[in-house]
Each structure stands twice: as structure tokens, then as C-alpha cells.
């Protein structure tokens, strides 16, 4: 018997060693290939590998796929695959009542139960403490070994294919073909025939097990989603920033230089870019974050697209050099993949608490544009826009992402390079012989942007620095009026950008109404889902999502004026809220979650309900 479903959320959970991330990844592409929309979120254990079988060692991969548009990896799970006792204990709270549990029996032996800290004698899959759920016990380990008994492999080796059995079984439940994964295994183990065959055999064993497994009679059908026509791939946030940077380099005709120092969750951006040296990308692992941003400043001074990236603590260290970039007025992009703070805080958890730091975290009046990404695939466009502003407006730009976006992934309708926007550096033109009028490095165009003279350009020799500079000449100046003038020019240059970028658009909902939800960053999916549902329920709720955090869009005040209440959900104590209230003099309210985990759509709905 088959049941049609619009959307399903599955959480694969097991020990770090169980190949959970790979299993989730495979299910994701297989689902995507048949046209489902999908959103995924891996949940790694905290930085240091914990001993096998312990709660601290649990690795999870949550994914939601559907025949409708999917904006988040799901509030609650429909299915929880638990490879061991710890995996069950750590994740049961996310499973909806009546949800399916697929438990690997041998992962519930006394050793595993003890490591998972179940009290002596208790075993959830034996006592009926799980009666509110549909529990399916499957002895994955045993059957995997069974399937490989003739392979001549050792047990340890055999057990490494456990995840394929589960994957095959889940494929059966959701009626998926095995081809994609089989192709994957063929290429992955091209040179290791035995491993290839073993994994494929186990995958098939899991699938067939579904057909023969008495207890499990239902299969589910999740049809393709109404996604726009086009070519798709799956992409994660940091990957998308990496591609965006490479693209921006090409679009601007500038060499990309990325100076960085490893830090969770920004490191994978360094890793991504280091792969693309054949695009002329230069990556530099500096001795610390200060050297990282300074190397990027040096690269920009030399005419490259200088970029640096880090997370909270590292960004804090870059503050002084950021101020230098502001007063120099050179292109620079600073990527902050936010994580839980303060201080070292929660390195592997997500948060949005660095907004104020981005806008104000420097000495003196040092304004700069701040751009926020909202989803993994959106990182690509946001990155190109950040680079465009940096290069065309000769300014450092901070790009804000976070751990949730960085590690999450979704299908991406990737563009043709020919459809990408152009980026045009404001290059100065070298002197022709004899021309005698002095070069003015801080002379500006109508947008208050100075032009860019690179070492090597004849006759344009000039000196720039961190001391206040005289208008136009850039010579050091202690003149009081000049200082006020330059301070206002630097502010004006940034404000000007608001006039040149697109107006704020409404993501969803009526142009006037009861409640406007003003969001930014990774809260997008949860807000989107909540608003979609509440509109369906007939409420007067709208959604606008900010890309330009600074300067704020010119039409924002008129938008805000169109709603009785304005709600600002943030994964912080209310930073955008403080800015909006200070700037627009409206009594906006905040919804704040500081748990290191994203909002659920329900949390948003409940708050809106209070306001209506």
C-alpha cells in the first residue's frame, strides 16, 4: 500500500564513525534528482571527537524533502534513523509523536546503552517506553554481515557498509531508485572493486529487506515539487560563498586573494577556495586573523580582490585593521560566518549576534556596508553583491552568514556565467609623459568614490595611511574642518549606496496589513514557512527580508509604516531591533532565540498570533 505525502523530514543519526553524513548526502541527491525540493542540515558533534557510542559523539543529518517548496530542514522529524542508543536518546525530542523510529538493534546492546547513559537495565527498544512512536527494530549489523558473508571481508570492514543497508531500506520506504547511489559508489570506489561491490550488495540488501520485512507494509510517495525550470545542483552556504568569490574575481577581472586563519565554522570556506587555484585564486593561511586581514589589505592595495573570512572571535581581532581599510578607502570583503558567542562560546552552534559588531565594532566613526545572506544558495548572489560594492565603491564590506547557512544545503538553480552581473573597478589611468598636474588619490566621483591607482602605474605614485587625510590630496591633515568634512564624506559614501541598490522588496504577504515580519539572515526559511502557512490561514501577515543591513534600504521606512505591528525575529538579544527602533522611531517588537539552534516555523507563528 502507498501513501502520498507532500513533505517528509528524516533525521539520520548515529556515531561519528557510522557514515551518517554520507548517507544523508546520498538521500539528498537522489531526492533532488527526481525533482523534490529539499533542505538539509548536518549536526556534527562539538569540536572534539568524543568516544564512540557516547551522547557527545552523536552525528546527525536532518533533511526535509517534498513535492511542495521546502524552506527549512523541518521543525520536527517524521522519521528518526538511530544507529545506536545514544543517537536515539540525543534526538528523540525532535521526533513528532507517532513518528517512525528505525533502530539498529545491535546498537542497543548493554555497552551502547551504558554509554548513552540509560539507567541500568533500561532499553528503550525493549521496554515499551517508545509506545508513542512507530518503532521498527532492524538488526542492521547482522544483516549487513549476512549480505557480505561470502565477500571474504573482515568483520570490521563489513560493518563499515552498515549505512548502505539503512540507506537502501529508506530508499525502499520512499520508493526511490538505487541508480544514483550505485553510480556514486562506482566512481567513489572505482579503484577498490571489492569495496564497491560490497557497498552495492549491502545497499540492495537493505532495499530488498524492505520488501520482505513483514512489519513494514506502507510505502510513501513524494512527488516532484513545482520548482522553476532549469539546471540544479545541491550547494552548501560556505561552498556558495566560495563560488561567489571565484565568480566575482572573474566578473571584475581582478585576481582573488583570500587571506584567512582557520576557525569553525568559516574554515571550510578556506578549504573550498584552496581547491580553485586553477582560477588563479590565491589562498593564504596567515599566522593569525590580524595578519589575515592585513594580507588582504595588502593584496587589495596591489590591485587584487582582497578577501578575508573568519567567525566571531577572529572578526573581533580584525577590528583595528578594518578601521584602516575604511580610512584608506580600498576594496575589501570580510566574511563573518557567525557562531554562538560570546568569546569562544559555542563554536559549532549558530547565532546572529555579531550584527552590532559588524556595524560598530571599531574605534572612531568607521562606517562600512554590511550585507547578509539568507540561505545556502543565496550566499552566491550575496557574495557577488558584497564584492561588487567593495570594488565599485572602494570600501570594505562585511558579509554576514552563520553556521546554519554555512553547513546547510539545498538545491540551487545555478546561473550561466553570462547571466551574472558585471563588476567594474574604478581604475585610475596612468600618466602620459609630460602631464604635470599632480595625482589626487582622494578626488571623488559623483558617488563619492575615489579611483584606484595601482603600484606600477606610471606617474600616480602616492602614499595612503591611517592618519586623517586632507580632502583630495590625501596628505596627512590635522585641520579640524577637514576632519569633520572627511568623516561626513566617509559616512556619505556609505549612505549613498542605499540610493544605488534595489529598494527593499516584499518577500510575501500584503503591502499593508496587521503584522510585518522583518527578518535578516538565516531566519529566512522559518519565517517564509510561517508566513506561507499563516497567509493560507487567512491572516494579514507579510514578510520582508533584509539583504542590506547597512546602509538600510531607502524605502524601508515607508514599508514599515504600512503595518500595525512590526516583528523582528533574531537569533540574538535584539540587535536589528535596536537599530530599527533607533533609526525609524517605531515601536517594533522582537522575537529572540539564543539557543545556538534555528527558529522553528511554529515559534514564529505563535509570536505572530500574539500580535494579531
Amino acid at each position, binding site marked *: 500500500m502507498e501513501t502520498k505525502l507532500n513533505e517528509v523530514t528524516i533525521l539520520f543519526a548515529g556515531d561519528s564513525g557510522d557514515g551518517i553524513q554520507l548517507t544523508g548526502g546520498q538521500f539528498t541527491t537522489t531526492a533532488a534528482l527526481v525533482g523534490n525540493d529539499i533542505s538539509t542540515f548536518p549536526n556534527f558533534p562539538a569540536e572534539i571527537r568524543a568516544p564512540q557510542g557516547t551522547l557527545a559523539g552523536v552525528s546527525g543529518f536532518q533533511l526535509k524533502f517534498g513535492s511542495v517548496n521546502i524552506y527549512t530542514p523541518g521543525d520536527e522529524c517524521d522519521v528518526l534513523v538511530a544507529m545506536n542508543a545514544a543517537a536515539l536518546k540525543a534526538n528523540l525530542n525532535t521526533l513528532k509523536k507517532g513518528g517512525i523510529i528505525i533502530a539498529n538493534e545491535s546498537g542497543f546492546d548493554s555497552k551502547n546503552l551504558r554509554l548513552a547513559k540509560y539507567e541500568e537495565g533500561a532499553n528503550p527498544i525493549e521496554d515499551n517506553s517508545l509506545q508513542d512512536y512507530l518503532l521498527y527494530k532492524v538488526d542492521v549489523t547482522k544483516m549487513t554481515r549476512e549480505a557480505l558473508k561470502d565477500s571474504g571481508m573482515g568483520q570490521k570492514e563489513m560493518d563499515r557498509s552498515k549505512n548502505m543497508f539503512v540507506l537502501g531500506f529508506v530508499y525502499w520506504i520512499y520508493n526511490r531508485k538505487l541508480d544514483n547511489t550505485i553510480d556514486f559508489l562506482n566512481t567513489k570506489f572505482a579503484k577498490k572493486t571489492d569495496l564497491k561491490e560490497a557497498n552495492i550488495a549491502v545497499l540492495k540488501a537493505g532495499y530488498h529487506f524492505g520488501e520482505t520485512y513483514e512489519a513494514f507494509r506502507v510505502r510513501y510517495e513524494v512527488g516532484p515539487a513545482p520548482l522553476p525550470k532549469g539546471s540544479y545542483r545541491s550547494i552548501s552556504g560556505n561552498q556558495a560563498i566560495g563560488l561567489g568569490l571565484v565568480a566575482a574575481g572573474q566578473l571584475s577581472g581582478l585576481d582573488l586573494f583570500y587571506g584567512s586563519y582557520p576557525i569553525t565554522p568559516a574554515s571550510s570556506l578556506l578549504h573550498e577556495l584552496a581547491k580553485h587555484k586553477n582560477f588563479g*585564486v590565491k589562498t593564504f593561511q596567515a599566522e593569525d586573523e590580524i595578519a589575515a586581514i592585513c*594580507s588582504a589589505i595588502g593584496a587589495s592595495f596591489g590591485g587584487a580582490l582582497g578577501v578575508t573570512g573568519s567567525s566571531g572571535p577572529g572578526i573581533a581581532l580584525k577590528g583595528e585593521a578594518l578601521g584602516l581599510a575604511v580610512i584608506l578607502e580600498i576594496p575589501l570583503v570580510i566574511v563573518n560566518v557567525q557562531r554562538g558567542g560570546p568569546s569562544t562560546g559555542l563554536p559549532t552552534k549558530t547565532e546572529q549576534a555579531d550584527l552590532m559588531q559588524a556595524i560598530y565594532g571599531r574605534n572612531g566613526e568607521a562606517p562600512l556596508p554590511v550585507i547578509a545572506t539568507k540561505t545556502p544558495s543565496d550566499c552566491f548572489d550575496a557574495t557577488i553583491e558584497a564584492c561588487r560594492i567593495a570594488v565599485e565603491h572602494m570600501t570594505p564590506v562585511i558579509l554576514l552568514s552563520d553556521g546554519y547557512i554555512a553547513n546547510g544545503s539545498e538545491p540551487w538553480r*545555478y546561473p550561466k556565467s553570462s547571466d551574472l552581473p558585471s563588476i567594474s573597478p574604478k581604475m585610475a589611468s596612468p600618466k602620459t609623459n609630460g602631464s604635470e598636474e599632480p595625482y589626487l588619490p582622494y578626488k571623488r566621483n559623483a558617488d563619492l568614490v575615489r579611483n584606484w591607482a595601482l603600484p606600477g602605474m606610471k606617474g600616480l605614485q602616492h*602614499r595612503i595611511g591611517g592618519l586623517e587625510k586632507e580632502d583630495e590630496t590625501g596628505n596627512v591633515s590635522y585641520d579640524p574642518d577637514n576632519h569633520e568634512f572627511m568623516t561626513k564624506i566617509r559616512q556619505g559614501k556609505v549612505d549613498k549606496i542605499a540610493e544605488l541598490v534595489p529598494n527593499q522588496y516584499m518577500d510575501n504577504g500584503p503591502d499593508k496589513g496587521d503584522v510585518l515580519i522583518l527578518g535578516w539572515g538565516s531566519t529566512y526559511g522559518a519565517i517564509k514557512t510561517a508566513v506561507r502557512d499563516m497567509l493560507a490561514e487567512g491572516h494579514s501577515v507579510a514578510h520582508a527580508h533584509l539583504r542590506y543591513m547597512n546602509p538600510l534600504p531607502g524605502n524601508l521606512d515607508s514599508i514599515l509604516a504600512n503595518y500595525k505591528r512590526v516583528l523582528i525575529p533574531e537569533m540574538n538579544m535584539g540587535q536589528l531591533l535596536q537599530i530599527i527602533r533607533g533609526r525609524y522611531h517605531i515601536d517594533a517588537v522582537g522575537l529572540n532565540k539564543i539557543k545556538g539552534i534555528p527558529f522553528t516555523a511554529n515559534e514564529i507563528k505563535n509570536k505572530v498570533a500574539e500580535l494579531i
Partner: protein
Amino acid sequence: MATTAIAGNGTNKLTAKDFATDQDVRWCPGCGDYSILKQVQTVMAETGKSPEDIVFISGIGCAARFPYYMETYGMHSIHGRALAIAAGLKSVRKELSVWVVSGDGDCLSIGGNHLIHALRRNFNLNLLLFNNEIYGLTKGQYSPTSPSGKVTGSTPYGSLDAPFNPLSLSLGAGGSFIARSMDRDPIHLRATLHKANEHQGTSLLEIYQNCNVFNDGAFFTYTDKATKVQSTIFLEHGEPLVFGDDKSKGIKLDGFTPVIVDLKDAGKDDLWIHNENDKIKANILTGFFEHYQDENTLPRPFGVIYKEDRSRYEDLMNAQVEDVISSKGKGDLDLLLKGTTSWKIE
């Protein structure tokens, strides 16, 4: 500004004046920085490089004002970070002639980490360390090179720190060119600047510089006619270590211990012959650091103490890019965007 706009077109030979800017030099009258500026401008002209192909980068300090006075490209950055900025610049523009000017505080106190990493990476640039054993710009606090016991604004009862031996530190960090000169010996300074410039790698040149306002005479023993001959030794590759009035003294090694010999009684034969490429000997030489007391004090060495030819970071960086391109082919953006697994929705 660019008063010498036509300079450096190669056709007409440049002079030191072509490297002076229109900004008035704002160091205290009598500051050692003036002499260094003059020698550097002269050497720049002698190298025959065009001004637009030269970049001076500095941090903050009196010394760090240097770029404003050089008619080249320049950046007066933030305190201690000049080397980190230079690293990025060199990574993307290897053809430029990059000079970093840094004070003893800028380079060895707040900038210490960038110094040791720059030396280990060996970018091809020249680092001029203006050592005046004091924080000049902030009006006289002791620095990491001030002798212990130094009485300054921040240490009215004397400083407690054992100072760095900047050249030993640089050797330990893996520096590939270690040299010393002084503001008050223009000829030696120019010669050593040329050697630093010719070396392919990070050339560290420590320059003893007199801060006549906050630390006057810190190096007079080594710079004054009267004491100079006794207290200094000028090294030449392949030449024996001789010094003193009309070179009447030499240094030989008794085991590992350097001893001063009077050439009147002893012959030159068993004298220590300077070898720029010998790291162990370089370590012994940088160890000549005791403050001059009498004729038994080992003289302070000047000139190129150590020199080693090893690969430049920016060369490796560019080579790696080239390698990857030749193995994978020049990157195709559309292929990159498509990725490994993609699908169509019609």
C-alpha cells in the same frame, strides 16, 4: 605629490631628489632618520628602478613616517602590521620592489609575530628595522631592545625586561638575510642597503638610529670616531675578522669561543674568516652583543652576518597556481557552477 611625474620612464637617469616628495619632513631636528632617508633615496636612484615599481610600507612610529617622504607608492598602515600587509602585496604583485620600514617597537614588540612568520616564509622584500632602542613617537617609553634598567616614562625606576637580540631572534626564526648598519655611516649604510636589495628573500637590515630627543647617544660608542674603531667590526664575506686602529686586531675562534688577538704579536693566518653562509658562525657573531666596556669587549659586528638562498614564498605560490592550471586546465566558471552532480527540471 607626483612632482616627478616623468621620472622613471627609464630615459633619464634618476637622482636621490627624484625620490623626495613635496611633504616637509617632520622628524625632530637632528634625528637619525634624516640620514637614513637620504641614503635610501640615493640607493633607490642607484638601483635604476622606476618609482612606480617601488612600494614602501610601514606601521606606526617616527620611523614609520618614512613612506610619506618617498616619491614611490606607499602605505603608512597600522602599528606592527606592515609585514603582514607586505605579504599580501607580494603574493599578488611579485614584480614590485617592496620595502618595509619599521621601528624597534613596531617590528619587535607589537609586530613580533608577523616578523618571525615573515622570516620563515621568506617573501622577497626588504625589511629596514630602525632600531633606536626607544618608542619615539609616543614620547619615550622603553622598547624590546632597550637595555634592562632603562629609565623612561613608563619605567621611572628602570625597566626589568631582558632585551631581545634582534639578529639572534631573526636567525632563530629562519631569516635568510641578516645584516646590521648604522645611520651615521652613510657609505656602509648605502652599501648594505644595496646588498639587502640584491638578496632574493626577506632581507632584514637592522639600522642603529639615534633618537636625539628621547634616547640620545644610545649607539655613540659604535658611531663616534673616538670609540668606533675599537667597538665595531665590519664584516666582509671571505675576509678575516679584523678591526681596531689600522686593523691592528683580529678575532679567532678558540674552540667555540671567539677571542681577540693583537695582530702585532700574532699572525693573521688563524683568524676567523667571515662566511656569510655559515649559520653556526652567524649565531656566534650575533652573540657579540655585550655592551662595549673596554678593549676586551667583543666588537659589535656590522654588515651581512648571514645569507642563505632559499625559495621565495611568492614564487612557490605562483608556481603552485601554474602547476594546478597546467594539470587541471584554466578554470571554467560554468563548469565550476555546475559542480559534480547536477540535474535538470523541465
